């Protein structure tokens, strides 16, 4: 595996500057030590990466293409626009990269049972798929509100042999699914691996999920250099927990000329309070094992978030993003529900691609960015997933009286 610039972060104890770490109940300490050690051994094991890369090629269909969206270029004016087609990966999103990597680690640790949380359902589907492939028992925790919004993905997971457990506590979305998965893990820690789906949670998850996802940026960088003979002016990706964005950005961190923009969910607007734009409020705290930017009230109670996109509907952001925010290397912006829906419609009509509502946030901002750039510029948008799962949500949205 090629070495990334910046691959030395986090430090030995899992900190990205003041962020990250391991804020966990003591019962999980040994399992995280085991995972860290096992991942360290796997990193140095060519057979592990050989098997992983073989599955990415033959099972996932990597490398995913980069596609020049000439119709968007005509509509937007200005720069060349490329899409990194993670929507073409098996199961329909980038999530499969991480799920397969961690499922291989699970087998390496001699564990037979996997649990995972899911928001939009894409990580759940990817994990159920990896478990079916490798013969692992699989249970997925999903907020009951998300089960309703993403009913198709629930059925997909069940057909893949996973048990799906709707979570009724709290806001019944992703954060509550993570709480339940953590509780399961604390209880069954000796037999079970928790395949966390984003660059979140306690060390070593933010590091290993990033490493498994960094294939996105390594491919995109090589593909652009081959096709265009140059690096992009800017990269744009959505950020919920932040795995598709960090996966794209990581190979470019050392390329100072490349701007990077990460797009949070603006929901109904920042002033409404109904959003998931963590960097707009600048509060640092501790949630789900890590210290990072999050949305909480003045007493430190975690707030309920809102986004039309279940995959971005989460109150905290990965700790490496917190560091990249503070250093200024990545710019964090947001797009509202309405902007995302408009971008969804535009890509469908212009290019014949239904994007995931998560990825639609990146498209919405890319359009704004394009208006400030010239024909000499080139932007690449990470199309992190396909939008089939969101069709009903979009139809319902469009049927609402717009006011």
């Amino acid at each position, binding site marked *: 595996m090629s070495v990334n610039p910046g691959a030395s972060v986090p430090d030995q*104890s899992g900190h990205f500057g003041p962020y990250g*770490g*391991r*804020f*966990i*109940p*003591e*019962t*999980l*300490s*040994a*399992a995280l*030590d085991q995972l860290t050690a096992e991942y360290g051994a796997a990193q140095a094991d060519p057979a592990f990466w050989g098997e992983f890369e073989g599955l990415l090629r033959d099972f996932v269909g990597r490398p995913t293409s980069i596609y020049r969206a000439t119709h968007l270029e005509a509509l937007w004016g200005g720069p060349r626009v490329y899409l990194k087609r993670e929507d073409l990966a098996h199961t329909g999103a980038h999530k499969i990269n991480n799920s397969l990597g961690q499922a291989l680690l699970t087998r390496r640790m001699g564990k037979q049972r996997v649990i995972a949380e899911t928001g939009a359902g894409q990580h759940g589907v990817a994990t159920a798929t990896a478990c079916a492939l490798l013969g692992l028992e699989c249970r997925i925790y999903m907020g009951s509100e998300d089960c309703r919004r993403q009913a198709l993905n629930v059925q997909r997971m069940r057909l893949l042999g996973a048990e799906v457990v709707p979570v009724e*506590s*709290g806001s019944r979305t992703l*954060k*509550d699914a*993570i*709480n339940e998965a*953590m*509780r399961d893990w*604390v*209880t*069954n*820690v*000796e037999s079970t691996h928790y395949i966390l789906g984003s660059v979140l949670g306690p060390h070593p998850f933010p590091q290993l999920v990033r490493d498994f996802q960094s294939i996105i940026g390594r491919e995109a960088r090589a593909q652009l250099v081959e096709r265009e003979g140059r690096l992009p002016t800017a990269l744009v990706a959505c950020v919920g927990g932040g795995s598709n964005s960090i996966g794209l950005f990581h190979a470019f961190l050392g390329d100072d000329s490349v701007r990077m923009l990460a797009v949070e969910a603006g929901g109904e607007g920042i002033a409404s309070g109904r959003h998931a734009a963590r960097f707009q409020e600048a*509060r640092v*705290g*501790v*949630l*789900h*094992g890590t*210290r990072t930017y999050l949305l*909480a009230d*003045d*007493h*430190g*109670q*975690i707030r309920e978030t809102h986004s039309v996109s279940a995959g971005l509907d989460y109150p905290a952001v990965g700790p490496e993003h917190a560091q990249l925010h503070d250093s200024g290397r990545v710019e964090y912006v947001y797009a509202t529900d309405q902007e995302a829906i408009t971008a969804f419609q535009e890509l469908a009509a212009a290019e014949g691609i239904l994007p995931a509502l998560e990825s639609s946030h990146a498209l919405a901002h890319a359009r704004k960015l394009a208006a400030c750039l010239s024909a000499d510029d080139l932007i690449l948008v990470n199309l992190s997933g396909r939008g089939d799962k969101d069709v009903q949500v979009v139809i319902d949205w469009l049927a609402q009286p717009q006011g």
Partner: protein
Amino acid sequence: MSSRPSVRAALDLRRRGGKAFVPFLTAGYPDWETCERAITLLAACGADAIELGVPFSDPLADGPTIQASSQRALEAGVSLEQILSRMESAPERYPLPIVLMSYANPIVTFGVTRFCARAEQARVAGVLLSDLPPEELPELWREVRESGLETAVLVAPTTASARIPSLAAAATGYLYLITRTGVTGQGGEFASNLVTQVSLIRRSTDAPIIAGFGIRTPEDAARLGAEMDGVIVGARIIEILSQPVESALTELERFARGVRAALDTSGQATS
């Protein structure tokens, strides 16, 4: 005014002739009056200290019972600020050493310096944060210790022996030995290696070792009390307090006296 209460001193005093009983209550649950009456009642029934839960919205180490009580307390407006204010304004309602138990985020958000100062005014004895191991936020740990707050630290059945000395060193109040993998309030078997964990802890510290998680009956208390310095009972007490107030307090008294008697018996059997 007398000196600040010490949970370590209270537990050590009990250890000379018996086993300690440390009930857990969610602060302000089911309401403040009942909660404070329960503290007074538990003191009269032979409890040695109280773990008072500062509710958090995402309590991932807790099972459904304590989660639900935390949620209800939050909905009623309970906050760290409110807890400290009540303790400060009516110290007679807190006749035992109080250990505030929570998660990192409410304390970090309140501000550590401010928390330590207010905890001193409120005569809080100690603090236990379920998701804050001693390696994280060392400046918070240092400030807490220097302020005179005692610290309770968790040891799990899965904790590796090499890690125990650092956990023991961080605990100035007591070691909370988790009796099973899992969340609070679950039944089932206790972990098989508790005696081993106790002996490993003993090599590093003479601080009290108090067992908790899933201790639901006087029999559980007697069994674990025989091997530890005492027990913590949480979810079972919250279940009792979920009943209508008067019957809840009657049953709480009966239960607490049962636990006290069982611990006294097991203490005699081993001393």
